[in-house]
Structure formats: C-alpha cells, structure tokens
C-alpha cells in the first residue's frame, strides 16, 4: 500500500533516458550542470566577501577542476585569486611542468610554500618513513599567515574520506589553522557564513558535493587537459606496502625493493613518497572513466599511504590544519 496525501505528477514506469519524471522537463539540469552551478556560486561568494582569497593548487585533478570552475565563474574577467602550491620537494616533474604552464597560460600569480626550505632551515625534520605529506601543514599555515590569506580554496571532496564527509563548504579555521569538527557552524540553504576574526581564516571547498566520478565526467565533458601521469604509461615502479611507488631521491627503492617497468597510471597526485600508481591500461579519458566506475577501491584506499596510518588519520591531520 502506498499512501500519498497529494498525488504528484506520475513518474511511474517512465524508465526512459534519465529516468524519473525529469527527462521530459525542459528545465531539468544534469547533475554535472547542477554541481557546476553550485561550485561557481561558491567561488563568487568568496570573491564578494573576502579580501585575500587564494586557491590551493597541486596540479592534481581536483585542483585543476577547481581552477577551471574559477575561470568560468569570472569570465570574461580573469580569476581574481592567486594560486598557492605547497611543494613537498618530492613532486612528480610532469606535475610541476603542468603547474607552471597553467600559471603562464592564464596569467595567474603563484605562491610556492616549500617543505624543502623548511627542512633546510631546520624548522621541519624529515620523518623516518620518508613521507613528506604530513609535513605540508607547517609551510601551508606559514604561507597563509605571512600572506594574510583569509579564504583558502581546497579541492577536498566529502566522498573522499569519512572525516571529510563532515566538512563544511565554508570551514572556519582558528588562528592555529585548526579544525574542530564539534564546533562547526551549521550550514543552511546556500547561505555561507564567511565571518571570521583577525588571524582566523576560512577553508572553502567548492567541490564538496562532487564524487571522483563526477570529477572525471566533468573533465571529459569540458575537455580539460591533465598531467599525463593520470593516463596509463610505462613507468619504473617498485612495490612497498601494497602500492607501486615511483623511485626517486625521496628515498626509494631501499634494499630488497626491486624496480620494474609496469603499465600504470595515477588516480591521485600528491607527494611521490606516499602516492601509489595503479596497474592500468586506461590511456584515454573514456577508459579512465570506465575503470574508475568499475573499481572496487576508493581512490585513497588504492593509492594513499598516509590515510592508512590510523582509523582517524585524516581527522587528526585536519585538526592540525591540513587541507
């Protein structure tokens, strides 16, 4: 028995393309159009309400999509924000090359916060496991403070990780850059509250409601260029901790680890010391989408060592100021 207080327009059995009752509605937006419109709204809110916003840009697919959305949001004017890259010193050369070409093409301003500089000055110490990803927090917070950035766009998505599922679109950070999940502002309707005190800043996540698949479908639809390492290529890798890591000056391979050439691609792009490649022959975007859609592993589960440190690894890092 189905009870209905008011009968709605019949949707039953339509079963056509798009399903639901929306396919015939000329005003229906596809999910990508709806997500795009929402993200653009978020970019413009920040432009309207903050003094010194900056976009975190790693050369990874999420930050590339973020920049693409920002370009659309303010067209035909240029993006009114600078970019900030936290360079671990262990980045993939292809990604740094992509970063520099992108900055030049769009006439953007790039700030680089360098983990290596902090290590050289003795303000950070290399970890025994060689992973530099957790070390990014200090240079990031230093860059935010010294440049007095008041809004920092990140490409984080809530589908990535369960602590991120609790993240607000506008996420207030205290003067230490910290995130307190129990003190978050409720976020209602599309009314984002960016008020903050001097010294505090707001992290802004325009891709909050996107999934990995949405990002790839959007990249395909918009024909966005990515660093080549996202597509299958032959590469020297070695096995560690169940992942294929790229050899390099960062500290691999060690004794007993053997380098071999495999056909691989990357699902996420971060520090070489903790970002693993996956076996793949997906050399085109269509093949990548099919592969992601069929994958039984989350992108972080498949390729990120740092999230495996503990059950609450992401939550703990975010509390300290990580993005």
């Amino acid at each position, binding site marked *: 028995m189905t009870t209905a207080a008011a009968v709605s327009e019949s949707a039953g059995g339509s079963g056509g393309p798009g399903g639901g009752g*929306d396919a015939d509605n000329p005003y229906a*937006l596809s999910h990508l159009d709806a997500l795009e419109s929402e993200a653009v709204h978020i970019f413009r809110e920040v432009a309207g309400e903050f003094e010194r916003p900056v976009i975190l840009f790693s050369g990874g697919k999420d930050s590339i999509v973020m920049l693409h959305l920002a370009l659309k949001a303010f067209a035909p004017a240029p993006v009114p924000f600078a970019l900030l890259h936290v360079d671990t010193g262990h980045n993939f050369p292809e990604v740094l090359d992509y970063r520099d070409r992108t900055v030049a093409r769009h006439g953007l301003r790039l700030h680089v916060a360098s983990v290596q500089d902090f290590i050289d000055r003795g303000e950070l110490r290399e970890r025994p496991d060689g992973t530099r990803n957790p070390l990014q927090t200090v240079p990031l917070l230093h860059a935010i403070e010294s440049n007095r950035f008041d809004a920092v766009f990140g490409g984080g998505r809530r589908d990535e990780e369960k602590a991120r599922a609790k993240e607000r679109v506008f996420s207030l950070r205290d003067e230490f850059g910290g995130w307190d999940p129990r003190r978050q502002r*409720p976020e209602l309707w599309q009314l984002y509250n960016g008020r903050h005190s001097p010294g505090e800043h707001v992290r802004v996540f325009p891709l909050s409601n996107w999934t990995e698949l949405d990002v790839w479908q959007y990249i395909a639809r918009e024909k966005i260029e990515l660093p080549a390492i996202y597509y299958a290529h032959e590469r020297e890798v070695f096995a560690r901790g169940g992942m294929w890591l790229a050899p390099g000056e960062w500290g691999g391979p060690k004794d007993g680890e053997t380098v071999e050439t495999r056909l691989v691609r990357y699902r996420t792009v971060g520090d070489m010391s903790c970002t693993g490649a996956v076996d793949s022959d997906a050399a085109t975007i269509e093949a990548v989408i099919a592969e992601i859609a069929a994958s039984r592993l989350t992108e972080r589960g498949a390729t990120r060592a740092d999230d495996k440190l503990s059950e609450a690894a992401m939550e703990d890092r975010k509390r300290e100021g990580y993005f």
Partner: protein
Amino acid sequence: MSTIVDPVDVAATATSLLRFATAGSVDDGKSTLVGRLLHDSKSVLADQLEAVERASLGRGQEAPDLALLTDGLRAEREQGITIDVAYRYFATPRRRFILADTPGHVQYTRNMVTGASTAELAVVLVDARNGVVEQTRRHAAVAALLRVPHVVLAVNKMDLVDYAEPVFAAIAEEFTAYAASLGVPEITAIPISALAGDNVVTPSTNMDWYGGPTVLEHLETVPVVADPSEDPARFPVQYVIRPQTPELPDYRGYAGQIASGVLRVGDAVTVLPSGRTSTIEALDVLGEAVDVAWAPQSVTVRLADDLDISRGDLIAPAAAPPATTQDVEATVCHVADRPLKTGQRVLLKHTTRTVKAIVKDIPSRLTLADLSQHPAPGELAANDIGRVVLRTAEPLALDPYADSRRTGSFLLIDPADGTTLTAGMAGSAFAEAAEAAAAAADDDAEWDF
C-alpha cells in the same frame, strides 16, 4: 523495479541530482538504513567495507556494523552515536544522490534543520513496534517547517512485527494525516526492514501485500524539478564582473545564481532596493550566451542601462518585484549554543546581502523536546524553534519562505565573532499550518508558531 547499479552506465549517462535528508530516533535504525542504501547500491567500496569489518571485529561484533560506514568522527565512534550532519554520495543509473545524514537526538534538532534546508525529500524513520511517537511528529514538523517537498515515511523493523500489513497501514494512516495537516505536500509510506534489506533496494518477498516502490526506487523516480516558470524571477547580485581590459573596456556583468524563476533577454526588470528599471540585454551561462536561463543556474546578466548595482542588490521582473521591508516576522530555529535574546543586535544575511538588525520581540517559543509552548520567552536557546520579530537597518527584498526557500530564508549572525546564531524563515505561513495541526492532533500540545 529498481536495478542494481552498473557503474559503467553511471559514467555514460547524464543523470539528475536528488538531495535528500534522513531523520530518525536513536534506535530506529537510521544508520543501518543509510548503510544498507550505500551497501546495496554498491556505493561502498571494498576497502571501506574492509575497514568497517576490521573495526566491527575489534569491537567484538561478528557481523559488520553498517552504521560504522557513516560515523566518521573519533568521538562518534567512541560513543557509538552520530553527533553531526554528514553528507553521503551514491549513484544509480537514473540519479545521483546527495544524502544529508542527520542525527536523531532531540538536542540535535538544528542538524535536522540544516539537512532539511537543502533537501528535496526527507526520509522519516519509524520503528514499526512503536508507531508514531513524539519524535516522529517533531521530524514531520521540521520537514513541514523547512518546506521539504516530499516526505517518505519508512516504517522500519517490519521483520519484528511479522511483516503484518495492519501494523503498517495504521502507522501510515496516522502519520499521513498528521503530516498533511502540517502542510507537507506529498507523503509516501514504505514498509521496510533495514537490517534484513526488505524494500530498501530490493523488493521484499516477505510483504507481498505491498505493491509500492522500494525506498531506492522511490528516490530514483520522485520528480524533483518543479516548473520554474511558475515562480517570479529572483536574481540576487553576487559579484560585479568588470574586466576593464583593452578588449572589454565597458563590460559590466552582474554575476549570480538565479534564486527562482526564469530570466529572458529582453525582460523588463527592476533593481531593488533602488527601484531603478532596465531591460536584460544579454545572459551568459558561464561564458556561453543564451536567450533564457532559470533557477538554479549560475549566470551573468547584462542590462541595457548603466545603473549603479552592486553585491546585495536584487534583480526582479518589473511586473512582479518582491515587497521591501525593514520589519521582518519569521519562524526561526536557533542553532547556536549561546541564546538569542530580545533586544540583541545581530547581522542578518539574506541572499547576498548582510544588514544590521535588532531582535524586537520573541513572541513565542516551542521546545521540540516536549512540544511545550512558551509565550514571550524573552530568549531562544539552542535547538529551540520560535517566532521572532526583527527590525533591519536597511530594507530587504524578502519573499515569504512559503513562496521561496531561497529568497525567504536568512541567517542571524553574531557581529562580535561571526557565529551563526539562527536560521530564519520569513512569513507566517507555517504558523497557520501548525495551528491546524495542533487542532488536529488529539493531545494538549499547542502550536502557536
């Protein structure tokens, strides 16, 4: 019939997006329902399931506890409860879903309000053994208050009442009568067992008497796009785009997201609060020129006349502009831990406009915990729902929330430190519905908000 997801098809098709919220009391099995929806729609990937299995084993549980899929924070896992709204994502070939997973504790009413504010559908869970309880009515009231267009009553734990139709029919009838009297426009009742998987994703073989959709099938097919041409256009100006380049020395575009209705090139428009008029000369949807655009598209509008327009102004049809006012009456949900008091000075954020305001009066308060009503309480505490009267420093182009969730909603913000204090819904439409519900409900609880 709901189909199990073939993920490759998801990739191939452009689908629509449904935002929905869940609400349920602590032991109604909400986390299990959400876990089951994610799991049975194959949205839980192997490494996530392994993590849940590992954590369940570590706690001495034999079967994987699907609730652990949704409890993301350390404190939640420690206490075994959900303390905050979280957002979940899954997809079928027909639709993409954004689920606002809201805790059912009385003290977290604000979280259900938060989740319901953007939801097009709310799932209210009831334990078939207990039927409609006070908490159920609170959830129905919040859904009505926030004007969620569709409500699903999921009568859970049918396995514990021998899958008996009369049990379901009585609960469905009572809930439907109550929610309809509150003004909930559409209610669908579905008998389920989240634990056993009956009627969540796959049709139950235990309830042949039920001929309706499963929960997932209903979520996939409920029509969510209203006809925007029925509503007057509202365009809050977010940001003025002025390239000032040699190629575009005079370009002046008003960027924003259409809050309601349809905009067309050639439309005669009024700009509020100034009242100046012009016509739409051009419309861009993110760089592409169009003749027509509608809510909720993010667009850029150019006008035929060079008017002084900035962030916070509202562009509306010259024939159907909203009234402007400095005296706002509203139903509110107080979301901050510190109280809201009569006489307090606040900031009011409405669309893209933030103005100073003063709380002139708090005529009534309704404590959802026991449905008790307090005339002239003087203040509102966290999670209270009440009526407020505000006076703003500048006029606002405010629609009744009943007419527009987008241009009828606002936030009250503490000017001292930026804390979000209160969620506001302009107008009195809900008060009338609530009064009717109070009259209909056969108890002493009176609703005067």
